[in-house]
């Protein structure tokens, strides 16, 4: 009886070690994902979670994207920030169920530039917010969608 109890305890101990040893590093890596901002249902709430509400509009933040996207599943957007000292760029599709699509942090050695493809459920404003020297700057562009991208 006792022997069985020992092995059971040992097995439980091993399972615990496996769980804590193997799963923990993954959780630590995933922690760098801003759950509140990405889970926000409105662009306003997402910006609040990013600490970026009240961004001033800027002409030095360039968005290159088609005016009309034929396929909402793949909408190419190219963003360049000419604002000196830009450290991050966030992309929000205002009418998507979860507006925040991406946030990029640029370290020393990278230019504040990114090109990406996003899904758009319907015609919407795409808002880009750049962070430079603790201040936030925004630019907006409307993209018309003829076929939505949420059907997959």
């Amino acid at each position, binding site marked *: 009886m006792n022997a069985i109890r020992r092995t059971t305890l040992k097995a439980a101990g091993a399972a615990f070690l496996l769980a804590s040893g193997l799963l923990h590093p993954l959780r630590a890596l995933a922690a760098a994902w801003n759950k509140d901002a990405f889970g926000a249902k409105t662009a306003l709430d997402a910006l609040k979670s990013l600490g970026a509400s009240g961004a001033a509009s800027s002409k030095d933040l360039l968005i290159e994207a088609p005016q009309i996207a034929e396929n909402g599943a793949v909408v190419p957007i190219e963003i360049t920030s000419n604002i000196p000292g830009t450290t991050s760029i966030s992309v929000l599709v205002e009418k998507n169920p979860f507006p925040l699509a991406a946030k990029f942090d640029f370290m020393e*050695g*990278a230019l504040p530039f990114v090109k990406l*493809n996003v899904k758009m459920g319907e015609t919407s404003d795409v808002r880009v917010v750049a962070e430079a020297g603790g201040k936030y700057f925004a630019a907006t562009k409307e993209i018309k969608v003829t076929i939505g991208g949420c059907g997959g």
Partner: protein
Amino acid sequence: MAAGSMKMRATLGSGYTDVRVLMSHPMETGQRKGPDGKLVPAHFIQNITVKVNGKTAVEGQISQAISRNPVFSFRIKGGAKGDKIEVSWIDTLGETTKGESVIA
């Protein structure tokens, strides 16, 4: 398509290096219904890291709103032939893939 492989290319431009990455990933939103009428569970890349010669240059957080089989372009300041560019990602299931390329 299964999550996995990555294709990348680093091209020397004028004053910068263009890094293009193509990742194979379904990027499921969790809002799409499969053929059985049930919702397909969310499964998407959350974090992307770009390193140049071992030093982190870009860190990206992305959501389910990024298209399936994501393609990204980044620009690295300067860059020289032989510099090593590494890109890695981790998704909602903890799966991860790394790719590397040398500036040609």
